[in-house]
């Protein structure tokens, strides 16, 4: 059974500390891939002050756990971690951290890539982008659907 650790964080996410902890526990497996997503201060030239991520306590964590479990099984991964912010996340702050450890380099890459694609569209989160000239809910784009589609190929 894979070691899966998922946390939804309403206040803060420290990717450096998460990476350190994950490497300390699972680095010995040989290959560790980590992805960090940070809120950008501008999206298509429009200033973003913060994201607000609405969440459904219980269901959100379960949806992220399900994604990690599928990834662990599909790519034969020994350890996976997902850390996702919710509530208000200011520009420049980390919003998501995902890592995978395996004895196979390729599997670790694919598992993280896969989890990120699924988190975009299948984690029970609702993202709102707020700035001086904007305040709107983000919905998955055609690109997101395309990214997800990659994984249904044989």
């Amino acid at each position, binding site marked *: 059974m894979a070691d899966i650790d998922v946390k939804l964080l309403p206040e803060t996410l420290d990717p450096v500390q998460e990476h350190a902890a994950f490497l300390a526990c699972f680095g010995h497996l040989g290959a560790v891939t980590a992805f960090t997503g940070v809120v950008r201060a501008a999206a298509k030239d429009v200033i973003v002050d913060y994201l607000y991520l609405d969440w459904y306590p219980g269901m959100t964590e379960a949806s992220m756990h399900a994604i990690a479990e599928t990834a662990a099984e599909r790519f034969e991964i020994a350890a996976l971690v997902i850390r996702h912010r919710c509530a208000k996340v200011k520009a420049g702050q980390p919003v998501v951290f995902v890592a995978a450890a395996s004895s196979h380099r390729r599997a670790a890459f694919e598992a993280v890539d896969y989890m990120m694609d699924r988190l975009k569209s*299948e*984690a029970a989160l609702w993202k709102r982008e707020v700035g001086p000239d904007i305040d709107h*809910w983000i919905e998955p784009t055609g690109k997101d659907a395309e990214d997800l589609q990659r994984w249904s190929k044989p």
Partner: protein
Amino acid sequence: MIDALFFGRVAEALGQRRTQIDVPAEGLSLLSLRARLFIGDDDSKVLMSVNQVIQSGDQALHDGDEVAFFSVFSGG
């Protein structure tokens, strides 16, 4: 009593995040609850869950159920 929760764009449109509804004697289905809450039928992007499991069709609701209405997910 049924707990109805709202998230994302739906919460914003309704101006509330939660309401509680008694199950009437004649019963209450998921889609009739949705209509009663004035969650527009024309908006095909409203998703529903019962006890945290996403449901796409209609079904009878029971006392103690937790029902939620929300827009499509966007995380990551």
